[in-house]
């Protein structure tokens, strides 16, 4: 029992409530939101050190022992993701201060942002399937509000599709929960894992596993990503960045948790399905990224490609591949945030998102241009930047698992990612300058600070792989051995 486990959920939640109570005081909202996210980050770092020294930390809510109450479980995988979430949230808030505009700020942008973080952190920490559904809903309802806030035509049009697809996938989630409860009689993840290991994963349980895979794929954009490019290109930059960085990752986390902890008995069915879906996601995403001429759409399709690539690691299910997936997941949260922020800044400067209507931005904005160049290289996994190690390990893992076609598709799509992102660089930053400093639609004043923080982090992560290696190693160790998770949740109590 460790009460620190719940803090990453309730700190943003209580701060959000306080902001709503104190009304439309924008100064208070700004200070409190940034302070809250930094505090949550510090708590998360504390948790990392606790998990490293004392093993998996759990909290049984209300003192009810594991299968009866709701468990909060912090293992290294979830804690690492929470630290990254806090980092990205702080930078997106810094970006939002300068770019989101008075009107959106006074309509409670910051409280809803914090509620979104509450839902994301809750999904990472929960050890109960129904509680996972609740945390998903907290996150999704906040995201519905964030995607519509401001009420522009494009936003409203895309948000209807986004809300509809997520409502339907929530119902599928509930159906899967109902079936799973009928088959196993429990919803606690550790207890589920134990019961399925006892009775064996028969056809019925595998079907439920595939239904859950479909649900989480809809949220993560794994193969079922048709809603994603439209909805992620509609909202303003700071919101699109936090969406691209976090929302799909929660779905990916859920798939990882379910298919390493609970449904790991039939990999020739479920994990092969994940491999096929990942491969199709990479191919279709790469086609989309190459085809479009619009910065927002290219970046949205890059989100999709990364989902497929991370899933290739899970499908291989070797130690190296899972390690690569975790590295790549952390890298991807950061790099998607920075690349969306950079793209948004370009659109902000040029007043358009069409690549053939902008040119030569690097003449007047060298810092922006070079940071975009570094991030583009990092996105496509050029050493020594942060994407490289994940890419190497996932490819190695797919080869070890005899999934050569999957590794090959991953490498080919990496080239297409490089091509699509270099297209933005060549058209946007290279060439003759169309806009003089006076004609630009906006300034980069204050926008470069959050971008440079994240760029520095991606360089540091690439150079300092050894530094986080011990943490990632421990995360993989717990993912590959479900008995650690189970014994931590039950803590020596009798299991009914």
């Amino acid at each position: 029992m460790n009460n620190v486990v719940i803090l990453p959920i309730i700190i943003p939640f209580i701060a959000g409530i306080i902001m709503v109570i104190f009304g439309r005081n924008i100064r208070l909202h700004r200070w409190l939101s940034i302070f809250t996210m930094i505090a949550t980050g510090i708590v998360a770092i504390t948790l990392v050190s606790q998990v490293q020294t004392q093993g998996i930390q759990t909290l049984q809510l209300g003192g009810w022992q594991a299968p009866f109450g709701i468990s909060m479980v912090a293992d290294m995988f979830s804690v690492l993701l929470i630290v990254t979430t806090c980092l990205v949230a702080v930078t997106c808030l810094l970006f939002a201060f300068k770019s989101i505009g008075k009107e959106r700020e006074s309509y409670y942008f910051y409280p809803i942002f914090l509620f979104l973080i509450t839902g994301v952190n809750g999904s990472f920490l929960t050890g109960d399937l129904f509680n996972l559904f609740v945390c998903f809903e907290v996150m999704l309802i906040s995201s519905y509000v964030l995607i519509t806030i401001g009420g522009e035509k494009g936003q409203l049009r895309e948000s209807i599709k986004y809300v509809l697809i997520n409502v339907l996938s929530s119902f599928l989630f509930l159906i899967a929960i109902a079936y799973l409860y009928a088959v196993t009689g429990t919803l606690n993840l550790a207890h589920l894992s134990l019961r399925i290991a006892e009775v064996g994963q028969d056809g019925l349980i595998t079907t439920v596993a595939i239904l859950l895979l479909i649900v989480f794929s809809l949220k993560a954009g794994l193969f079922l990503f048709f809603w994603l490019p439209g909805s992620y290109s509609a909202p303003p930059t700071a919101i699109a960045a936090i969406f691209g960085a976090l929302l799909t990752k929660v779905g990916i986390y859920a798939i990882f948790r379910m298919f390493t902890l609970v449904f790991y008995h039939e990999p020739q069915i479920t994990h092969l399905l994940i491999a096929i879906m990942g491969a199709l996601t990479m191919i279709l995403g790469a086609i989309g990224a190459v085809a479009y001429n619009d910065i927002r759409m290219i970046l949205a399709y890059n989100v999709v490609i990364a989902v497929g690539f991370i899933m290739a690691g899970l499908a291989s299910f070797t130690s190296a591949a899972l390690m690569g997936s975790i590295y790549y997941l952390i890298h991807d949260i950061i790099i998607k945030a920075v690349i969306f922020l950079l793209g948004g800044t370009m659109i902000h400067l040029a007043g358009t998102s069409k690549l053939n209507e902008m040119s030569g931005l690097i003449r007047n904005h060298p810092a922006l241009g070079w940071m975009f160049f570094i991030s583009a290289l990092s996105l496509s996994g050029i050493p020594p930047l942060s994407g490289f190690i994940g890419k190497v390990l996932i490819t190695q893992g797919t080869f070890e698992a005899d999934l050569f076609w999957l590794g090959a598709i991953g490498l080919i799509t990496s080239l297409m990612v490089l091509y699509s992102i270099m297209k933005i660089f060549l058209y946007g930053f290279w060439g003759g300058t169309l806009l003089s400093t006076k004609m630009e639609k906006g300034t980069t004043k204050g926008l470069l600070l959050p971008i440079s923080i994240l760029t520095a982090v991606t360089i540091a992560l690439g150079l300092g792989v050894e530094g986080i290696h011990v943490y990632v190693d421990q995360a993989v160790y717990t993912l590959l051995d479900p008995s650690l998770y189970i014994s931590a949740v039950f803590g020596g109590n009798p299991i009914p």
Partner: protein
Amino acid sequence: METLMSFLVGILITIGTYLVLTKSLLRIILGTSIIGHGVHLLILTMGGLKSGGPPLLEDVSYTDALPQALILTAIVINFAVTGLFLVLAYRSYKVLGTDDMDQLRGTEDE
């Protein structure tokens, strides 16, 4: 009783799916609401139906209280989302001037 409930759930989800596939936004929202009811009844059925048993550990015959707790939470969430969705539909009808999903595809020049 379980068979009857299964038919009821199936009918509700069928009607909901039909409504979701129509063009009008209001019908779609009603469709999601009806699917929601079907799903909630499914959770109740899947927990095991037992008429007359109290949800407490009094004697040998008691009803499992967990599905009811799950449905309570799910209904609250569904209620909130439906409310938000209705407001969103009203607002987008005001701004976009249509509730026909075919006309909400968007154009290239925006």
